[in-house]
């Protein structure tokens, strides 16, 4: 009987320590258009039957995985965690170690933090202040929210100096627009200066040219001279007048670059804006654009993305374009197309653009 028990225990241990590397790799191999789904479904079943102790290993599988694979793994973690929480077997310590290693993917670390929070709210609270400068914008939200609360509490006690410190620290770390807006208002109400364009990394000064024709929305695909050459002293035949380059610096604190201002409220037209961004090093970055017109963005002559949707809305960081900056001068060219609509809500012919890292932290130009 004793022997059987030992055998059973041994079997259980083998099962608990089952090597998940192969099924995890199968999930990581899924690709666009459902490629790998069949194999992934089988591998997923293997993973969700594993012991809760494997959770960090499954989370680690998310490192460097594509977003589809991340979701396969996230779902598996969810099932394992639900069972572990029920059985009070969540490997909290291992999850804390996983969370603290910022080399792990932000998405996986967010999941780890959520699990820690579900298992031990007090521990999650204790960990929160350590996440203020985290590579994950999602994880930063927690300590930033705490700083907003701390600032509010200080203000209630009429301790404006302490409130300014808390709000200032919060703003320095905040990466989400809703929190930044709250903190900027709080600080301004306390007579503090806030430089939002710098905080976000908006590019404010551009050379702009318009109006080329976008009749029947064909201008979006028409290659006008600025796409072939950037000669800022040149002029070209435009739709309603000569198209010439003009300098434009935005004063909008959300960095709106408004073609209507230098060129008038034209319809069915195309404009271009160009600027140089000086990087201190070769590095990965994101160009983030918000625009409710048709647009294209090139970096150093390479088309990053093109979008032919008109007047369905714009917002900060609407589109995130991963890119590689080179050390020194980087030329960014934006094509912005206005369509024929005449409704009041179709007046805008503008964009906002910033350069930042994947967390949303502004990358400031070297000059």
């Amino acid at each position, binding site marked *: 009987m004793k022997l059987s028990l030992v055998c059973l225990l041994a079997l259980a241990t083998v099962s608990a320590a089952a090597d998940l590397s192969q099924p995890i790799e199968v999930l990581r191999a899924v690709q666009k258009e459902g490629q790998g789904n069949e194999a992934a479904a089988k591998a997923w079943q293997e993973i969700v039957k594993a012991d809760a102790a494997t959770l960090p290993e499954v989370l680690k599988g998310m490192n460097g995985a594509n977003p589809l694979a991340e979701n396969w793994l996230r779902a598996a973690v969810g099932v394992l965690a639900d069972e572990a929480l029920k059985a009070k077997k969540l490997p909290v310590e291992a999850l804390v170690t996983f969370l603290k290693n910022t080399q792990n993917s932000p998405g996986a670390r967010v999941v780890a933090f959520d699990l820690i929070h579900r298992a031990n709210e007090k521990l999650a609270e204790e960990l929160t202040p350590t996440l203020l400068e985290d590579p994950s914008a999602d994880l930063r939200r927690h300590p930033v929210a705490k700083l907003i609360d701390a600032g509010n509490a200080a203000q209630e006690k009429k301790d404006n100096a302490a409130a300014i410190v808390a709000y200032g620290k919060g703003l320095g770390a905040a990466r989400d627009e809703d929190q930044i807006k709250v903190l900027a208002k709080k600080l301004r109400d306390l007579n503090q200066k806030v430089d939002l364009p710098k905080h976000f990394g908006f590019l404010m000064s551009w050379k702009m040219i318009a109006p080329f024709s976008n009749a029947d929305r064909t201008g979006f695909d028409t290659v006008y001279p600025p796409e072939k050459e950037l000669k800022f002293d040149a002029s070209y035949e435009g739709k309603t007048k000569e198209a010439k380059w003009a300098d434009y610096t935005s004063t909008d604190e959300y960095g709106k670059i408004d073609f209507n201002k230098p060129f008038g409220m034209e319809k069915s037209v195309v404009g271009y804006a160009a600027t140089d961004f000086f990087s201190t090093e070769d590095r990965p970055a994101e160009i983030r654009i918000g625009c409710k017109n048709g647009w294209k963005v090139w970096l150093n002559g390479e088309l990053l993305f093109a979008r032919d949707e008109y007047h369905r*809305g714009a917002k900060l960081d609407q589109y995130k374009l991963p890119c590689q900056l080179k050390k020194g001068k980087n030329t960014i060219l934006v094509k912005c197309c206005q369509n024929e609509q005449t409704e009041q809500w179709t007046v805008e012919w503008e964009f906002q653009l910033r350069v930042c890292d994947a967390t949303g932290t502004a990358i400031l130009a070297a000059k």
Partner: protein
Amino acid sequence: MKTISMFVVMCLATGVVRADWLQFRGPNAAAVSTEAKAPADELKIAWTADLPGRGLSAPIVVGERVFVTCSSGPGQETLHVFCFNAADGSKRWERAMRTTGRTMTHPKTSVAANTPCSDGERVFALFSSNDLFAFDLDGNLLWLRGLTFDYANASNSLGMSQSPVVMDGTLVVQSENDSESFVAGLDVATGRNKWKLDRPKAANWTSATVWKNTVALQSSAGILAVEPATGKTVWDYSDGASTIPSSVGAGETLYAVSHGITALAPEKGAVTQLWRNEKLNSGTASPLVLGDALYVVNGAGVLIKASVKNGDEAWKLRMKGPFSGSPVAAGKRIYIVNERGIFQVIDPDAPKGKVLQEIELKETVLTTPAISGGALYVRSDAKLWKLQ
């Protein structure tokens, strides 16, 4: 044996004892319950379940399971699929995933706008971000797709809401927008494309109508009916149609939300117009057919009853609006919830129509109810209710 046969005959004659509600607007996307037993005349809230995120997708019901989706987080990047027990509202399982597509929407709508659907074995949950997940009824992930990950310009900055439908082993998914606009037929077992068609480059929030072995795809261009398994055109109506309320089929006729309502009798390759009434203007809500009458909710919150034979108006009933969700029906009652959360039960057989009951849900409701097991299910951004 005799008893069983009699039971089957009775069921066939009067509707089934219990029917699932497997998609937006239920059986055949017609918004009418096929159950023999209608919900009770005096409805009460049987249970309420909390939801952790926003959503205007409708619940669906498969047997004793109620499925609902929602989205949470500062940018609505977390996507939830819930399975509740129909009997008591307890949670059977939940899966939380992450968007791979864009999450921007008009503030009124949300990322969980598309109603999931089921073939009775699997649940297919599509979101405005174009993320699509297939689970079995116990929550095992069967496959997933990121349709904007696949097709980078397939999105709408106002949000998308087209609900998928499943038929003959094919899941038909629409992503119709101003840019990379398409419809695809996916293998229900693997999620791989069986076929994919370009669609008009124009924002579209309508959902497909399942009718006479075809899937009828509505857009500003009109209505294209395709074979679900192949995507091949069966017929094409090209006189334009609405991009918000969806059409409804009943019997041999498709009531198209086109120039008011246009009654169509499509044959293979041809479409005959039976009648058109341009005054039957739907607002956001989709029409339904109950018995020999067509019901339309206009933009002013007025329910209009019209003849299915010629479109002639019978009466108008002003209800408490405004409405974002669509009416549904069971037995001799029509049910609709307004945006302020007032659930209304209507007797359409009363001479001028009559509101029989109002239940205040005290939350904003932008969705369409589901009916199954003699009960109705409604959701808000925070709650799921069972009314019985």
